[in-house]
């Protein structure tokens, strides 16, 4: 007997967009989490709970460090604005 299940398949992707701004650290953290931790639909409830708890911890770490990265990049931009003779633009980053 020859059995066959499956084939070449396309997975479900997501389209995300925001207007008038870029993605926030929280939104990007959520995107990253979906790549880092995948909980299968048929996972045992206990394993799923553990995975969700782990996901929550990772989410906090990602958001914290992403905020730091944004703040740090803003510092770099502030210095570039100052060096370029446009210190008034620094205020835009502080708001």
């Amino acid at each position: 007997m020859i059995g066959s299940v499956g084939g070449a398949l396309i997975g479900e992707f997501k389209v995300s967009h925001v207007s008038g701004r870029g993605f926030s650290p929280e939104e990007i953290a959520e995107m990253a989490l979906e790549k880092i931790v995948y909980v299968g639909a048929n996972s045992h409830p206990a394993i799923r709970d553990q995975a969700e708890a782990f996901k929550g911890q990772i989410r906090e770490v990602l958001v914290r460090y992403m905020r730091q990265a944004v703040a740090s990049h803003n510092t770099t931009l502030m210095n570039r604005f100052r060096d370029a003779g446009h210190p008034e633009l620094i205020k835009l980053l502080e708001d």
Partner: protein
Amino acid sequence: MPISVTTEMPTSFKVEILRALQDFTASTGNTFKLALLKATASGSGTFGAATTNYSNLSTDELANGNGYSTGGNTLTSVTPTSDGTTAVCDFNNTTWSGATFTTCGGLIYNSSTTGGTSGRACAVLSFGGDQSVSSGDFQIQFPSPAASTAIIRIA
């Protein structure tokens, strides 16, 4: 007639895998891109399993400018691996920043020349209707590279 797009794996792609014309190996493999279609009412093509090449998009591709460059974004491929008995492929998420456009779908294609042809289609993506962004970020998020979720998989 407006653009008609359905999420499908092109039939030609299945053949090209068996003919070793699609190489998703990171860094040393082929270069893959994701091109976007115009808004549904702004075009007229039909895209799905019969789509074979990037050139099929023709005038239905999103216009250059406003955060979009003709040809689309280059994707960063992750070397295919296996999850159980399923072969899975993955790409890093891709973002169009500072974008202002409306799109109804896209095409992942091989921009490298293999077997004398470039632009071989890999996956047609429908966005389930028009998606608009104005002075913002537009991102396609690819699923986890697992047996039941990966963007391109052979089970």
